[in-house]
Protein backbone atom coordinates (compact mmCIF):
# COMPACT_ATOMS: atom_id res chain seq x y z
CA UNK A 1 0.00 0.00 0.00
CA UNK A 2 1.29 3.47 -0.79
CA UNK A 3 0.21 6.45 1.20
CA UNK A 4 1.14 10.07 0.93
CA UNK A 5 -1.42 11.44 3.28
CA UNK A 6 -2.11 15.06 4.07
CA UNK A 7 -3.91 14.32 7.32
CA UNK A 8 -2.35 15.21 10.67
CA UNK A 9 -1.34 11.90 12.23
CA UNK A 10 0.19 11.41 15.66
CA UNK A 11 2.37 8.33 15.04
CA UNK A 12 2.54 6.76 11.59
CA UNK A 13 4.36 3.55 10.76
CA UNK A 14 5.84 3.69 7.31
CA UNK A 15 6.13 0.18 5.86
CA UNK A 16 8.48 -0.97 3.09
CA UNK A 17 7.85 1.00 -0.08
CA UNK A 18 5.58 3.50 1.66
CA UNK A 19 5.87 7.20 2.45
CA UNK A 20 3.96 9.91 4.28
CA UNK A 21 3.92 13.68 4.77
CA UNK A 22 2.81 15.19 8.07
CA UNK A 23 3.02 18.24 10.31
CA UNK A 24 4.08 18.83 13.89
CA UNK A 25 3.51 17.16 16.35
CA UNK A 26 3.35 13.97 14.29
CA UNK A 27 5.93 11.22 14.55
CA UNK A 28 6.87 9.16 11.51
CA UNK A 29 8.41 5.71 12.09
CA UNK A 30 10.19 3.21 9.84
CA UNK A 31 10.95 -0.10 11.61
CA UNK A 32 13.42 -2.84 10.79
CA UNK A 33 15.48 -1.18 8.06
CA UNK A 34 18.22 -3.34 6.60
CA UNK A 35 19.26 -2.43 3.08
CA UNK A 36 16.24 -0.11 2.85
CA UNK A 37 16.74 3.58 3.59
CA UNK A 38 14.51 5.99 5.50
CA UNK A 39 14.71 9.34 3.72
CA UNK A 40 13.43 12.33 5.66
CA UNK A 41 12.71 15.71 4.12
CA UNK A 42 11.73 18.59 6.36
CA UNK A 43 10.99 22.31 6.36
CA UNK A 44 11.98 23.04 9.96
CA UNK A 45 10.48 26.52 9.97
CA UNK A 46 7.04 25.33 8.98
CA UNK A 47 7.43 22.00 10.81
CA UNK A 48 6.28 20.10 7.76
CA UNK A 49 8.11 16.88 7.00
CA UNK A 50 7.91 13.54 5.33
CA UNK A 51 9.49 10.12 5.39
CA UNK A 52 9.93 7.49 2.68
CA UNK A 53 10.91 3.85 3.39
CA UNK A 54 12.79 3.20 0.16
CA UNK A 55 13.64 -0.28 -1.14
CA UNK A 56 15.56 0.09 -4.40
CA UNK A 57 18.04 2.59 -5.93
CA UNK A 58 16.56 3.41 -9.35
CA UNK A 59 13.20 3.12 -11.08
CA UNK A 60 15.31 2.46 -14.19
CA UNK A 61 15.71 -1.08 -12.84
CA UNK A 62 12.35 -1.63 -14.51
CA UNK A 63 13.09 -1.82 -18.19
CA UNK A 64 9.71 -0.66 -19.53
CA UNK A 65 9.05 3.08 -18.96
CA UNK A 66 5.32 2.35 -19.01
CA UNK A 67 5.69 -0.23 -16.27
CA UNK A 68 7.37 2.29 -13.93
CA UNK A 69 3.98 3.92 -13.35
CA UNK A 70 2.59 0.59 -12.12
CA UNK A 71 4.94 0.52 -9.14
CA UNK A 72 4.46 2.54 -5.96
CA UNK A 73 6.66 5.66 -6.14
CA UNK A 74 8.21 5.11 -2.72
CA UNK A 75 9.84 1.85 -3.81
CA UNK A 76 12.64 3.64 -5.69
CA UNK A 77 15.00 6.42 -4.61
CA UNK A 78 14.45 8.66 -7.63
CA UNK A 79 10.66 8.52 -7.69
CA UNK A 80 10.47 8.64 -3.88
CA UNK A 81 12.50 11.86 -3.63
CA UNK A 82 10.26 13.65 -6.14
CA UNK A 83 7.03 12.30 -4.65
CA UNK A 84 8.03 13.21 -1.12
CA UNK A 85 9.19 16.66 -2.18
CA UNK A 86 5.95 17.20 -4.06
CA UNK A 87 4.00 16.22 -0.94
CA UNK A 88 5.89 18.73 1.18
CA UNK A 89 5.48 21.58 -1.31
CA UNK A 90 1.76 20.90 -1.66
CA UNK A 91 1.48 21.10 2.13
CA UNK A 92 3.12 24.55 2.08
CA UNK A 93 6.83 23.87 2.63
CA UNK A 94 9.38 26.19 0.96
CA UNK A 95 11.75 24.43 -1.44
CA UNK A 96 14.73 26.52 -0.27
CA UNK A 97 14.08 25.61 3.36
CA UNK A 98 13.91 21.85 2.85
CA UNK A 99 16.67 19.76 4.41
CA UNK A 100 17.28 16.03 4.22
CA UNK A 101 18.32 13.27 6.59
CA UNK A 102 18.76 9.59 5.83
CA UNK A 103 19.39 6.36 7.70
CA UNK A 104 19.64 2.71 6.70
CA UNK A 105 21.37 1.14 3.71
CA UNK A 106 23.07 -1.65 5.65
CA UNK A 107 24.60 -4.83 4.31
CA UNK A 108 23.12 -7.45 6.66
CA UNK A 109 24.93 -10.52 5.35
CA UNK A 110 28.44 -10.81 3.91
CA UNK A 111 28.74 -10.26 0.15
CA UNK A 112 31.10 -12.81 -1.34
CA UNK A 113 31.43 -11.73 -4.95
CA UNK A 114 32.97 -8.36 -3.99
CA UNK A 115 32.38 -6.97 -7.47
CA UNK A 116 29.21 -4.97 -7.15
CA UNK A 117 27.74 -2.80 -4.42
CA UNK A 118 25.00 -4.33 -2.31
CA UNK A 119 21.47 -2.93 -2.58
CA UNK A 120 21.98 -0.94 0.63
CA UNK A 121 25.07 0.85 -0.68
CA UNK A 122 23.37 1.48 -4.00
CA UNK A 123 20.40 3.01 -2.20
CA UNK A 124 22.69 5.30 -0.20
CA UNK A 125 24.70 6.41 -3.25
CA UNK A 126 21.53 7.04 -5.23
CA UNK A 127 20.04 9.20 -2.48
CA UNK A 128 23.26 11.16 -2.06
CA UNK A 129 23.49 11.77 -5.82
CA UNK A 130 19.90 12.95 -6.24
CA UNK A 131 19.91 15.21 -3.17
CA UNK A 132 23.22 16.75 -4.29
CA UNK A 133 21.91 17.31 -7.81
CA UNK A 134 18.79 18.96 -6.39
CA UNK A 135 20.90 21.06 -3.99
CA UNK A 136 18.96 19.83 -0.98
CA UNK A 137 21.29 20.07 2.04
CA UNK A 138 21.92 16.85 3.94
CA UNK A 139 21.88 17.64 7.66
CA UNK A 140 21.78 14.10 9.06
CA UNK A 141 23.37 10.95 7.68
CA UNK A 142 23.64 7.61 9.50
CA UNK A 143 23.97 4.89 6.90
CA UNK A 144 25.76 1.67 5.97
CA UNK A 145 27.28 -0.84 8.35
CA UNK A 146 25.98 -4.32 9.06
CA UNK A 147 23.10 -3.77 11.47
CA UNK A 148 19.36 -3.10 11.28
CA UNK A 149 17.80 0.19 12.31
CA UNK A 150 14.45 1.63 13.33
CA UNK A 151 14.01 5.35 12.69
CA UNK A 152 11.68 7.78 14.44
CA UNK A 153 11.21 11.31 13.11
CA UNK A 154 9.74 13.83 15.57
CA UNK A 155 8.42 16.73 13.53
CA UNK A 156 8.01 19.03 16.53
CA UNK A 157 11.74 19.08 17.28
CA UNK A 158 13.16 17.91 13.91
CA UNK A 159 14.84 15.08 15.88
CA UNK A 160 15.51 11.78 14.15
CA UNK A 161 16.19 8.97 16.62
CA UNK A 162 17.81 5.78 15.35
CA UNK A 163 17.41 2.55 17.33
CA UNK A 164 19.44 -0.62 16.78
CA UNK A 165 19.57 -3.97 18.58
CA UNK A 166 22.25 -3.93 21.29
CA UNK A 167 23.29 -0.32 20.59
CA UNK A 168 22.64 3.05 22.19
CA UNK A 169 20.07 5.23 20.45
CA UNK A 170 21.57 7.78 18.06
CA UNK A 171 20.21 11.15 17.06
CA UNK A 172 20.79 12.96 13.78
Amino acid at each position, binding site marked *: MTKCTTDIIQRTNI*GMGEGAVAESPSVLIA*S*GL*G*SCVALILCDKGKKIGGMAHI*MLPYSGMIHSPVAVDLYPPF*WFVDTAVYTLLDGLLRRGAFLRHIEAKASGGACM*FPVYNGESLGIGEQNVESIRGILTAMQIPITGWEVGGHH*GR*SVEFYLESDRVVIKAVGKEDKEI
Partner: protein
Amino acid sequence: MRINVPTKDRIADMENKLSIASGKAALALSQMLKCKVNVNLSSLHIIPLSGITDVFDEASTPVVGVKMSMFGDLNGSIFFMLPVNDQDSLMRQISEAAFGHSPGVGLDISILEEVGNIVAGVYLTGICDLYGFNIYHSLPSVTQDMFSSLIDEAVAGESMAGCHVVLIESLFTITHGSIKTFLMLIPSADSASAFLDSMGRGGNR
Protein backbone atom coordinates in the same frame (compact mmCIF):
# COMPACT_ATOMS: atom_id res chain seq x y z
CA MET B 1 2.71 -15.52 -17.86
CA ARG B 2 -0.12 -16.36 -15.51
CA ILE B 3 1.16 -17.91 -12.29
CA ASN B 4 -0.74 -20.98 -11.16
CA VAL B 5 -0.60 -20.53 -7.37
CA PRO B 6 -1.20 -23.89 -5.62
CA THR B 7 -4.69 -24.53 -4.22
CA LYS B 8 -5.33 -25.39 -0.54
CA ASP B 9 -5.56 -29.08 -1.45
CA ARG B 10 -2.22 -28.97 -3.22
CA ILE B 11 -0.64 -27.21 -0.25
CA ALA B 12 -2.10 -29.78 2.17
CA ASP B 13 -0.73 -32.55 -0.06
CA MET B 14 2.67 -30.89 -0.13
CA GLU B 15 2.54 -30.47 3.65
CA ASN B 16 1.94 -34.20 4.09
CA LYS B 17 4.75 -35.16 1.74
CA LEU B 18 7.22 -32.72 3.30
CA SER B 19 6.46 -34.15 6.74
CA ILE B 20 8.74 -36.97 5.68
CA ALA B 21 11.48 -34.40 5.17
CA SER B 22 11.02 -33.13 8.73
CA GLY B 23 11.52 -36.72 9.94
CA LYS B 24 14.79 -36.82 8.00
CA ALA B 25 15.85 -33.52 9.58
CA ALA B 26 15.15 -34.95 13.03
CA LEU B 27 17.19 -38.05 12.24
CA ALA B 28 20.14 -36.04 10.86
CA LEU B 29 20.16 -33.68 13.85
CA SER B 30 19.82 -36.58 16.32
CA GLN B 31 22.83 -38.29 14.74
CA MET B 32 24.92 -35.13 14.60
CA LEU B 33 24.15 -34.03 18.15
CA LYS B 34 23.92 -37.53 19.63
CA CYS B 35 20.68 -36.66 21.43
CA LYS B 36 17.03 -37.11 20.57
CA VAL B 37 15.66 -34.27 18.46
CA ASN B 38 12.14 -34.21 17.09
CA VAL B 39 11.24 -31.95 14.16
CA ASN B 40 7.64 -31.73 13.03
CA LEU B 41 6.34 -29.70 10.13
CA SER B 42 3.49 -27.74 11.71
CA SER B 43 2.29 -25.78 8.68
CA LEU B 44 3.15 -24.73 5.16
CA HIS B 45 1.93 -21.52 3.55
CA ILE B 46 2.42 -19.86 0.22
CA ILE B 47 2.10 -16.14 0.80
CA PRO B 48 2.61 -13.04 -1.34
CA LEU B 49 5.99 -11.40 -0.77
CA SER B 50 4.22 -8.33 0.60
CA GLY B 51 2.78 -10.47 3.43
CA ILE B 52 6.11 -11.78 4.65
CA THR B 53 6.55 -8.91 7.10
CA ASP B 54 3.54 -10.24 9.02
CA VAL B 55 5.30 -13.50 9.96
CA PHE B 56 6.44 -11.89 13.22
CA ASP B 57 4.34 -9.44 15.23
CA GLU B 58 6.66 -6.50 14.67
CA ALA B 59 9.09 -5.65 11.87
CA SER B 60 11.61 -4.85 14.62
CA THR B 61 11.26 -8.21 16.45
CA PRO B 62 14.80 -9.43 17.23
CA VAL B 63 15.42 -12.72 15.47
CA VAL B 64 18.29 -14.98 14.59
CA GLY B 65 18.45 -15.64 10.87
CA VAL B 66 20.42 -18.13 8.83
CA LYS B 67 20.63 -17.03 5.21
CA MET B 68 21.49 -19.23 2.26
CA SER B 69 21.22 -18.73 -1.48
CA MET B 70 19.57 -21.38 -3.62
CA PHE B 71 20.54 -22.11 -7.18
CA GLY B 72 20.01 -24.68 -9.89
CA ASP B 73 16.52 -25.00 -11.39
CA LEU B 74 15.37 -22.45 -8.84
CA ASN B 75 17.32 -19.34 -7.78
CA GLY B 76 16.61 -17.17 -4.78
CA SER B 77 17.13 -16.86 -1.04
CA ILE B 78 16.42 -19.14 1.91
CA PHE B 79 16.01 -17.87 5.48
CA PHE B 80 15.81 -20.06 8.56
CA MET B 81 14.61 -17.91 11.46
CA LEU B 82 13.46 -17.95 15.04
CA PRO B 83 12.95 -15.26 17.69
CA VAL B 84 16.05 -14.51 19.79
CA ASN B 85 14.45 -15.77 23.03
CA ASP B 86 13.51 -19.09 21.40
CA GLN B 87 16.97 -19.36 19.87
CA ASP B 88 18.53 -19.09 23.35
CA SER B 89 16.24 -21.85 24.60
CA LEU B 90 16.87 -24.06 21.55
CA MET B 91 20.65 -23.66 21.76
CA ARG B 92 20.64 -24.33 25.52
CA GLN B 93 18.57 -27.49 25.10
CA ILE B 94 20.67 -28.77 22.21
CA SER B 95 23.95 -27.94 23.91
CA GLU B 96 23.01 -29.46 27.25
CA ALA B 97 21.58 -32.60 25.65
CA ALA B 98 24.51 -33.04 23.27
CA PHE B 99 27.51 -31.74 25.24
CA GLY B 100 26.30 -31.60 28.84
CA HIS B 101 26.92 -27.85 29.21
CA SER B 102 25.56 -24.48 28.08
CA PRO B 103 26.60 -23.24 24.64
CA GLY B 104 29.56 -20.87 24.46
CA VAL B 105 29.94 -18.02 22.01
CA GLY B 106 30.83 -19.53 18.66
CA LEU B 107 29.41 -22.94 19.48
CA ASP B 108 25.85 -21.62 19.32
CA ILE B 109 26.54 -20.00 15.93
CA SER B 110 28.01 -23.24 14.60
CA ILE B 111 25.06 -25.24 15.90
CA LEU B 112 22.59 -22.80 14.43
CA GLU B 113 24.33 -22.79 11.04
CA GLU B 114 24.22 -26.57 11.02
CA VAL B 115 20.57 -26.70 12.10
CA GLY B 116 19.65 -24.21 9.35
CA ASN B 117 21.77 -26.11 6.87
CA ILE B 118 20.12 -29.44 7.66
CA VAL B 119 16.55 -28.11 7.80
CA ALA B 120 16.94 -26.19 4.52
CA GLY B 121 18.66 -29.17 2.92
CA VAL B 122 16.03 -31.76 3.77
CA TYR B 123 13.09 -29.55 2.79
CA LEU B 124 14.77 -28.59 -0.49
CA THR B 125 15.45 -32.25 -1.19
CA GLY B 126 11.80 -33.00 -0.41
CA ILE B 127 10.67 -30.30 -2.84
CA CYS B 128 13.10 -31.57 -5.49
CA ASP B 129 11.76 -35.12 -5.10
CA LEU B 130 8.17 -33.91 -5.31
CA TYR B 131 8.49 -31.59 -8.28
CA GLY B 132 11.46 -32.94 -10.21
CA PHE B 133 13.72 -29.94 -9.58
CA ASN B 134 17.45 -29.85 -9.01
CA ILE B 135 18.05 -27.21 -6.36
CA TYR B 136 21.19 -26.64 -4.28
CA HIS B 137 21.96 -24.19 -1.54
CA SER B 138 25.03 -22.22 -0.51
CA LEU B 139 26.84 -22.29 2.83
CA PRO B 140 24.83 -20.72 5.67
CA SER B 141 25.52 -17.29 7.15
CA VAL B 142 24.10 -16.31 10.57
CA THR B 143 23.07 -12.85 11.77
CA GLN B 144 21.04 -11.64 14.73
CA ASP B 145 19.00 -8.48 14.22
CA MET B 146 15.52 -7.10 13.57
CA PHE B 147 13.36 -9.46 11.48
CA SER B 148 12.54 -7.01 8.71
CA SER B 149 16.15 -5.84 8.39
CA LEU B 150 17.31 -9.39 7.59
CA ILE B 151 14.88 -10.01 4.76
CA ASP B 152 14.37 -6.57 3.23
CA GLU B 153 17.12 -6.90 0.63
CA ALA B 154 15.68 -10.21 -0.64
CA VAL B 155 12.16 -8.77 -0.55
CA ALA B 156 13.21 -5.59 -2.36
CA GLY B 157 15.06 -7.53 -5.02
CA GLU B 158 12.14 -9.78 -5.87
CA SER B 159 9.16 -7.49 -5.22
CA MET B 160 9.01 -6.23 -8.79
CA ALA B 161 7.94 -9.66 -9.98
CA GLY B 162 5.11 -9.87 -7.45
CA CYS B 163 6.59 -13.09 -6.10
CA HIS B 164 5.29 -15.53 -3.52
CA VAL B 165 7.17 -17.02 -0.58
CA VAL B 166 7.03 -20.62 0.63
CA LEU B 167 6.86 -20.45 4.43
CA ILE B 168 7.43 -23.70 6.36
CA GLU B 169 6.86 -23.66 10.12
CA SER B 170 8.48 -26.49 12.09
CA LEU B 171 8.35 -27.45 15.74
CA PHE B 172 11.58 -28.56 17.40
CA THR B 173 11.27 -30.70 20.53
CA ILE B 174 14.43 -31.67 22.43
CA THR B 175 14.19 -31.92 26.20
CA HIS B 176 11.17 -29.84 27.15
CA GLY B 177 8.62 -27.73 25.28
CA SER B 178 8.49 -27.09 21.55
CA ILE B 179 10.12 -24.24 19.68
CA LYS B 180 8.67 -22.92 16.46
CA THR B 181 11.07 -22.13 13.62
CA PHE B 182 10.43 -20.55 10.24
CA LEU B 183 11.94 -21.51 6.91
CA MET B 184 11.29 -19.09 4.05
CA LEU B 185 12.02 -19.85 0.42
CA ILE B 186 12.02 -16.67 -1.66
CA PRO B 187 12.34 -17.58 -5.33
CA SER B 188 13.91 -15.02 -7.62
CA ALA B 189 11.81 -13.30 -10.26
CA ASP B 190 13.21 -15.43 -13.08
CA SER B 191 12.25 -18.76 -11.53
CA ALA B 192 9.20 -17.97 -9.39
CA SER B 193 6.57 -18.61 -12.03
CA ALA B 194 7.98 -22.01 -13.06
CA PHE B 195 8.27 -23.05 -9.42
CA LEU B 196 4.77 -22.00 -8.40
CA ASP B 197 3.29 -23.39 -11.58
CA SER B 198 4.90 -26.75 -10.95
CA MET B 199 3.65 -26.73 -7.35
CA GLY B 200 0.19 -25.75 -8.54
CA ARG B 201 0.06 -28.64 -10.96
CA GLY B 202 1.14 -31.03 -8.24
CA GLY B 203 4.60 -31.94 -9.48
CA ASN B 204 6.91 -33.28 -12.15
CA ARG B 205 7.59 -30.53 -14.64
